[in-house]
Structure formats: C-alpha cells, structure tokens
C-alpha cells in the first residue's frame, strides 16, 4: 500500500468545495478502481463493487480478494452523474521512459535498501545476542566476547542487493509523477451527460437513494442483490429483477424466480421504473397454504 499524498482534486467548476474525485481507469473496457483512497471514497458513497485481484498478504486463496475494484456499469453511471468520477489516463506515455521517473525509482530503491540493511544488521545482532547469552553462563567473559563479536559484525556486515525485499505497488505509482494527469481527471464522459435511462439504472438509483446497498445477482437469477446495510455485515434481503412496465412477463418465469427466491430465503422484488421517475415495486413471497 503506498501512501500517496495527493491532495484533493477539484473539478474545474465554480463550486468552492467538491468531493474528491474517484480515479477510474479502464482495463479492457471495464471500469477499475485502484487507489486506496478511491476505494474508500467509493464505499463512502454506498457503492460496493467487486474486488478482483489477489490479496497481497494471502495471494493463493479465493475467499477474500484484493484490489482492483470492478464497478458495475450502474455504479459507474451514478458516479458520473454525481460528477464524482474522473478518468485516469491509461499511461503517462510522455513520462514513462522519462528520466524523471527512473531517477525517482532509483532514489526509492536506494532509500529502501539502506533502510533494509540497517534493519538486517539489527536482526543479526539480536540473533547473535540470543545465541551468545543462551550458550554461556559466565557474565564477564561473555560480555567481552560478545562485544568483540558485535564489533566484527558492524565492520564486516554487508547486506547483499539480491536479498533486498522489493515492493510491488498495486496502483500505478507514477500517478503522482504525472502532472498532466490532473488535466485528464476532469473529463470523464461528456460534460452534462444525461444519466442512463434504462430500467436497470433507474432501479439502481432509486434503491441506492433509499439507502440500500446493491451488488450484482447473476447467480441468483436476478439483476441486483439488495442489502439493508453494508454487505459485509448483512445478508441480502431481496433479489431485484428489473422489468419494464409495458413488457409482458411469462408466468413460468415469475414462478421460476419465486421458487428460486424462496429456496435461498430472499424476497423477490419485481422493479419497474414508472413514467415520472418513480419506481414501482412488487414483492413475491412464498406464503404457504392460504
């Protein structure tokens, strides 16, 4: 995790205060969020997303994944609507091979090396101390020998370059090095773009506005999973299926989705955006005999 001290990026608007923009970069036309502060900001907005990468501490497991965060198209649309998203440039092409970057990198490496060699020496001294004091009982002779050994260690210790631990940064470290990036940040989508009009986006916006958290529900046969609070703390209560008002639904599909919902103990919500930006909800619940 790098600690980038990038200040608040303000959009070029007349407002005094604008919430910090979330940097979204596209990878294979999918919106990904990489930086830690961006992830926090996205979660603060109430958008969950999905983590895709390996967790750095425990990379070989599928239970908890790490950065990047993939945004649903509806989430991306919402961020864009709130002018809270900003596109990060694909690469700082001008500066990639530039001397400035390389110099910075070398400086970082050297600093890290020095830090690590100091720590390595401390480690060796401690190990020696433990070995010496554990083996012998005599105090004075041990002290004398110990001091001599420690002195020798100080003089002869070298920390080889190959033993250095290298840190691989998750987000692109070069962002703070690219001053041009700021210019790109403002333009994410055409200014004043209309929010998406399709049923899914309307339902998403409405439910998010009511305070629910939403994730994708492909494996439940629906459009969204609706949580009453943060997904890390609650189970989903609803499976939202978006149907437009004038679309005719086959009864067998309704039965199938109702069965599925009752099997996983969730209420199925049929959501239909109405004409005046209101969304009409119908819940299906298995009720028993009568």
């Amino acid at each position, binding site marked *: 995790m790098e600690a980038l001290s990038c200040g608040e990026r303000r959009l070029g608007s007349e407002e005094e205060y604008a919430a910090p923009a979330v940097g979204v*970069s596209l*990878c*294979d*036309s*999918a919106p*990904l969020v*990489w930086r830690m502060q961006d992830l926090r900001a996205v979660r603060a907005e109430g958008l969950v*997303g*999905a*983590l*895709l*990468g*390996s967790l*750095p501490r425990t*990379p*070989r*497991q*599928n239970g908890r*994944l790490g*950065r*990047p965060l*993939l945004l*649903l198209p509806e989430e991306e649309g919402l961020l864009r609507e709130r002018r809270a998203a900003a596109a990060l440039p*694909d*690469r700082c092409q001008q500066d*990639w*091979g530039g001397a400035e*970057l*390389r110099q910075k*990198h070398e400086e970082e490496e050297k600093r890290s090396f020095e830090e690590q060699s100091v720590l390595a020496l401390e480690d060796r001294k401690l190990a020696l101390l433990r070995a010496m004091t554990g083996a012998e009982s005599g105090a004075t002779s041990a002290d004398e020998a110990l001091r001599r050994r420690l002195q020798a260690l100080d003089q002869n210790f070298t920390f080889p370059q190959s033993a250095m631990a*290298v840190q*691989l*940064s*998750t*987000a*692109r*470290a*070069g962002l703070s090095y690219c001053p041009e990036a700021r210019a790109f940040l403002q333009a994410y989508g055409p200014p004043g773009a209309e929010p998406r009009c399709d049923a899914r986006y309307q339902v998403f916006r409405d439910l998010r506005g009511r305070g629910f958290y939403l*994730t*994708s529900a*492909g*494996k439940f046969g629906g459009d969204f999973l609706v949580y009453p609070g943060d997904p890390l703390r609650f189970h989903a209560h609803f499976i939202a299926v978006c149907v437009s008002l004038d679309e005719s639904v086959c009864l067998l599909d309704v039965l199938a989705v109702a069965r599925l919902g009752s099997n996983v103990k969730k209420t199925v919500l049929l959501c239909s955006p109405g004409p005046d930006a209101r969304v009409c909800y119908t819940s299906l619940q298995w009720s028993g005999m009568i």
Partner: protein
Amino acid sequence: MGFSANGKQCLLPEEALYLMECGNLQVFHQDLPLSIQDGYEKFLSANTVSLQQYQVFGHLKRLGYVVLRFDPSSESSSYARQLNLPQSRDRAGRQLKRKRSLSPAPSSTPTATCSRAEAQEECSTEKMEEDKCSEGEEDIKLPEPPEAQSSADEGGGRSWWMMDVLGDSDKDSGHGSKSGSSCWDFSSISFPDLGSTSREHFPSDLAPPDPSLLPGDLKVGFCDIAPWRQKINLRQVKMSANEQKREKYRRRWDVNKNREVRRCRNWAEYQELMARRKGKREGRPAHLWNREVTPLHDPTQPIATGELLEKISVIKPTHLLEGASRLKDADDWRICFNVYQPNTVADFKKSNPGKPYSRMCVCSFDDPVPDLRAIKLLAYQSGDIPVVIAVVDYGDISFYTFKDFQLPTDVYP
C-alpha cells in the same frame, strides 16, 4: 508455467500477471518495474486475454489447478482418434485401448448347413409328424404327405358319419335310412324328446309310429319308456346364476338371427363372413393385411420386447456428437483453457501434460445461453473431455457444464 522460445524462458501475459499478483515476479519495462495496475492495463485486452478470462484463470490457479491455453490444432481430430493413432503426448502411462470391431457377417457357404441343422433340430422336437423331417431333405415328397393326411381325415370323417347314421337305429325314434327320399314332412312326424325334464309330456309308454314310416314289415308295439329314461341321466345340472343366464341365451341363440348372416345372399358371402370373423379372432384381419400398408408387426409372430420397442419407436435417441463434424466453426464460442489437476493428483509434465481434467470456455451472464449448435461445436473440438462454461458475473464465477444423457429403456430381455 511458461514456455521456451529462441532459447529464452518466456511467460504468457496471464501467467506473468498472476505471478506478479502473488508477489513472485517483477516485470521491467524500460528499466522500471510495472505495477499491478500497469500489468492489468498492458497485458489484458480483448485481443489477447480478456479481463473475464484472466479472472477465471486467476480463480483456478489460486485453487491449485494447472491452467494452460487451449490450442485447437494440437488436439487430434476424431478421425485420428478413431484410427487409434498413438498420440505422441499421451503415450506414457496410458494403455492404448483396443477398439472392439464388429465380427464379420457369416459367409454364404455355412448358411446352407446351418439351415439344415436347424431343420433337423426342429425334427427332433416334432416327433408326431414325421413328414416334416422328410420335407427338409427332399422337396419332392412335400406335396404328398399332407394330401395323404387330409384324404385320410376326410375319408375317416365320412365313414364316421355314415356309421353314426346307421347306429342311430338303436334309439326308438325312427330314423329312416332311406337315402335320397325327401318326401317326408318332418313337421308332422313326432320326434319325442326322452331327455326332456318336464314329465307331463310323457305317457308311460310311447305309441308306435306310423307304419308308413317304417321299413318293410317291421311291426312295432307300444314301448315302455320308463327303463329307457332310467338309463338317461335326467339329473338337473346345477348351474350358477351366470351359467343359467348363459344357458338361456344359448338356447335362444340362432345363427340365422345374426344381422350380418342375414345380409349374406349366398354361400360365398357367408364363407367370406366366416373367414373375416376368423381373421379377426386370430388377430390377422384380412382388411388390414391385404393392402399396401400393412401393420408394423403380426401379433401372431413372437417378438422380444426390446425389438418391439425399437420397431415402434418414432424418436431415435441421438448423442451429442452426432453431426458435429459437419458444423462450421463459430466465432463466438471458443475454448480458452485446458485445466489439469494439481500435481498431487495426476502427473503433469510440461513435455507430457496428459489428459486435461476439463476445458474452460469463458462468458458472462449478459451473453446468451449457448444453443445446441454451440454446444456440439465445443464438444467436437474438445473430444472426450467435458467442456465447462465459466460464467463471470462482475467478480463471481459460476461453472456450468452440459452432460450427454441417454433415457433408460425399461426392457427386460
């Protein structure tokens, strides 16, 4: 992981990215190490490995599987597999299964002896009719024995009838043996029924018949019928209600009352009617069998249940690979990866990977469900290894597979 090319060890982009994420590899570009973000953006694209495919790759590798890219040209075609050509990669550790070929059809020469043997077998079972054995050996004898039999039967029949007529003169009812004379009025001659159970009709003795009915100088007096009646079993047969009803109907039954019989205007038509009825009774009605379109099976012929089911089946079962070789390649459904089980379960060597555990095809929930054509294509490309479709849903991956299935036929041979 990886491959060697031009003397150098190289990694595929998804492998490099996975190792970077695990913290085992650093990739340098122009003397600067790539961050994970750089790796994602540089290595993953729609042309090389898409983000969804990389998600599936990473998921499987984190679980421990060995995942390699699928190369359609390296798979042997079904024809090569049919010929049982040794696959160079799979030679080690796999026995070549010898395919069972169909036994050749019996040639013409043994059939004659076979049928003869069969005929002789039949002969041994049918001891009653010696004619059939002779039938098999020499065909000339064939027409003679049946004729001899039938003539014997008929002759015997006629003689039996004649004997019966002559024997009837034992009874007191006078049957004249005058043949050829049809001048009697049978309605005026009384033929007493001695076996009748109602006693009122009988006096104790019978009056002698009209002397004109008797031959010659035969003089017949009164006859005491009591001892004769004693000889007849006049006991009432005990019948249940059903049987009594049946007996009543049988008494009333008259063949001439039948509507169909009345419709017959001559003997030929009556015989046709009898033949029709016989056909219907025996299960081979003439109107069904005399036309072009005959029933599928003659019910009088024995047949095993399995064969009968096959005869009447309208839908033939098919398997997944039928017709798959004729399909042209589709662009949208492609097998991406071969998945091998980890080293602890199977021996995997880069030079000899062995048979994959399954093959992966990656899509998303927005894509349509693969239709039969796509499934056939994938199965054909894959051979005998199941194809698993990994569906990616913004971070969740679900695995689906289609299995070939034969409906069981409940037939006991």
